[in-house]
């Protein structure tokens, strides 16, 4: 690995640029570099690992039991990447992807990078986007109160800084990560007063058909272990149908509904989690086509069997290609790398197929139980689109669920891009990451259409903000100057 620590250390152009240093990106970059390709891996975090293996090389959490064996597997993936001859830029954000207008032929991109307050445009012949997943927005009344945060944010604080939430903590929602985090936080000494499970009871029936595969899947052992651990040691409340955070100026309690029964649980921290969805902002801004996946109930990029997107030369691997978990992410990353290496002409199709074959069968095994989990943890409608009109759904612009519903029905707004013009939802600094799925859901419910028909935001670059000064001082490379003059 060659660390790139300043903007002028980048080469003019790379054969392959990989964006995101989680298991998918690390594996993709390593595989391509092992095959002799000039690779650059960039990530905005200070150290490799992505979300699952966050801070794997730097975490202050010393007790290996706390984060568990699955976490520490990340060390091997990072070690392999470090042995490979790939460039790596930490703390580097990619803010734009566009076609390279100066390229004579073939697949070529111009990408905008920013490092240490300086920006630059460089070339890339192939791109693999491995920017992973994000938590599905989980808007409930009171979720903007101090003391309420996402489970993912709590996990970042734990992994990178060994910070455990203060006081009485409640976790609420559904999905494997919720139980994992409950276990991790409990082991790290958090005071967990309850785990509120919102998994709709009816989902068990819907998922039953997918049970046989799940029983043969690697998820099973892990999942049962997590679940059993959480259930054994913690107060576990199932069948939660309604949830609100309450308090004056800060969280004081969680109001919980289970059918007609209500309960108020006093707490200092409420951690919310409603599963994860692919983080599509970058692939969307790059112009890749996406489809609505009914099983995972989210937008996923349209991909071929090398994880190539609808834009030739851009591949998407890891959870960004559809939620599959860490093991599948690494495998997808390697297959995407083989695809890119093949498109670069370094190996032929037969060789690509040969190398991909064992990866593909492992991938199939790794994903075997997925459908069961997707069906089981499909969120209930009231947690996708809050029924209470006052609930804020866009935190950047403070837009409520009622406003979106009203605008959809009264003004006949049929899609999120139009909604922006009326309510500004999605126009804040988060670029719709926190409100997009909810806005789509609310419009669909209000107009009696489906999320697939409603569509999603057209995202605008820069995908991550760059300052005016950075932009003004964009280094004009020799090639670029020539191209402009011509």
């Amino acid at each position, binding site marked *: 690995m060659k660390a790139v620590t300043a903007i002028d250390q980048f080469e003019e152009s790379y054969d392959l640029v990989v964006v995101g240093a989680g298991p998918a990106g690390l594996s993709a970059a390593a595989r391509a570099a092992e095959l002799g390709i000039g690779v650059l891996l960039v990530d905005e975090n200070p150290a490799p690992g992505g979300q699952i293996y966050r801070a794997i090389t730097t975490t202050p959490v010393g007790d290996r039991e706390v984060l568990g064996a699955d976490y520490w597997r990340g060390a091997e993936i990072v070690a392999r990447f470090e042995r490979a001859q790939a460039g790596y830029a930490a703390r580097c954000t990619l803010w734009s992807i566009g076609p390279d207008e100066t390229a004579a032929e073939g697949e070529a991109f111009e990408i905008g990078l920013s490092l240490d307050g300086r920006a630059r445009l460089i070339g890339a012949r192939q791109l693999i986007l491995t920017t992973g997943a994000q938590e599905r927005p989980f808007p409930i009344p009171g979720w903007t109160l101090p003391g309420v945060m996402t489970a993912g944010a709590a996990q970042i604080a734990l992994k990178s800084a060994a910070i455990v939430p203060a006081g009485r903590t409640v976790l609420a929602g559904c999905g494997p990560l919720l139980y994992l985090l409950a276990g991790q936080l409990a082991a790290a000494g958090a005071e967990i007063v309850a785990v509120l499970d919102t998994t709709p009871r009816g989902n068990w029936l819907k998922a039953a058909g997918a049970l046989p595969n799940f029983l043969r899947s690697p998820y099973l052992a892990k999942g049962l272990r997590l679940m059993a651990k959480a259930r054994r040691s913690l107060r576990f409340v199932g069948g939660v149908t309604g949830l609100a955070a309450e308090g004056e100026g800060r969280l004081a309690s969680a109001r919980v509904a289970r059918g007609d029964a209500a309960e108020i649980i006093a707490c200092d921290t409420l951690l919310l989690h409603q599963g994860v969805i692919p983080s599509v902002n970058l692939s969307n801004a790059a112009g890749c086509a996406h489809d609505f996946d009914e099983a995972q109930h989210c937008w996923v990029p349209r991909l071929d069997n090398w994880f190539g997107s609808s834009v030739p030369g851009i591949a998407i691997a890891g959870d960004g290609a559809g939620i599959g978990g860490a093991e599948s992410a690494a495998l997808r990353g390697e297959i995407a790398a083989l695809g890119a290496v093949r498109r670069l002409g370094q190996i032929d199709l037969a060789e690509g197929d040969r190398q991909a074959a064992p990866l593909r069968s492992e991938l199939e095994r790794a994903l075997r139980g997925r459908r069961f989990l997707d069906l089981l943890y499909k969120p209930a409608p009231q947690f996708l689109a809050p029924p209470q009109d006052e609930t804020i759904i866009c935190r950047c612009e403070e837009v409520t669920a009622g406003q979106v519903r009203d605008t959809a029905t009264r003004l006949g707004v049929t899609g999120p891009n139009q909604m922006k013009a009326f309510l500004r939802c999605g126009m804040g600094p988060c670029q719709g990451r926190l409100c997009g799925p909810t806005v789509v859901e609310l419009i669909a419910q209000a107009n009696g259409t489906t999320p697939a028909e409603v569509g999603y935001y057209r995202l605008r670059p*820069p995908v991550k903000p760059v300052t005016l000064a950075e932009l003004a*001082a964009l280094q004009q490379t020799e090639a670029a100057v020539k191209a402009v003059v011509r």
Partner: protein
Amino acid sequence: MSAAPTSADVIVIGGGIHGCSTALHCALRGASVILLEKDHAGRHASGVNAGGVRQLARHVAEIPLSNVSMALWHRIGELVDDDCGFTSDGQVLVAETEEDLANCKARVDDLTLRGFHHEELIDGKELRRLVPAVSESCPGGVISRRDGAAIPLRATQAFKRKAQEQGASIREGVRVEKVSRDGKTWRVATNVGDFLAPRLVNAAGAWADRIAADLGEPVPLEVIAPMLMITAPLPAFIKPVVIMVRRKLSFKQFGNGTVLIGGGYSGRALRDENRTVLDWRKLATNAGTVWDLFPLMRGVPIVRAWAGIEARMPDDLPVFGPSARYEGLYHQFGFSAHGFQLGPGAGAVMAEIIATGRSNVPIDGLGIARFTQQAP
């Protein structure tokens, strides 16, 4: 609900602000109208522009239309039942040198002679009162006090909704594929079937040349992709919209503190894909101008950049008025990156021409004949 009509008095092609405005004004005059839009109303230039409602520095040939429009903008809520986010804090043209200022004076004097009084010369003191952030060295400029800005998509959709309320049939997702003449009737073939009307308005924006060419009136329309950037919020520091004499820059701070930066730099438009490609080098130049002129902006994050697909004519003037070839055909396109302000008024004048065959508002110099007929 009865089935949507397939014939009407007037068919309008294009659901931008121009098509929607013309549809509304025709409906207000009692005509039956069908508007055909391939995407959704305001999907293109009309929904993504800078929202500048500007009379300042317009070509004289457009000023009469622009005057009609400005009067409508100032009572836009009455017209379309939505204020369209319209605010009027004036637009200011900044002169950076004495020579610039002399040119400004000549322009204002010329307008006065022609009977137009919306532009007013201002000295350095008034300039700095209006735009405190501007450099001490700027000797003055021109202000158009009734100018302002509105929210583009909201405005376009307000026209659409009002037209609908007045009985117009607005068909979104309907793409016009071919136009032909059937006696005195236009037959408009689309992806959902044929539509018929004796009168047809070509308001198809950056695609209007195709319709015109179909009808034997080819025009040298250039498809451009003007780019814009918007910043994170800053404390309020500027009220009017600012444009520069010497440099490509337009600048507007919204009520929420964000600043819209434009300058007429164009990216690349892929009109068949409904897509644009940004040119970051040009945006860097655009940012560089702001860096020079407004030092307090240097550290602010740019949160979004985009481009819209727009039609530009070689003389930067629209094609507006009856066809030079056929009765019952009207053109309304080619607004060359400044047609948003003209939308409300152009629709009113077009509806008048369609209904009565004439208008008192002069539109000389805007006809399609300037491109389709050889100079004598």
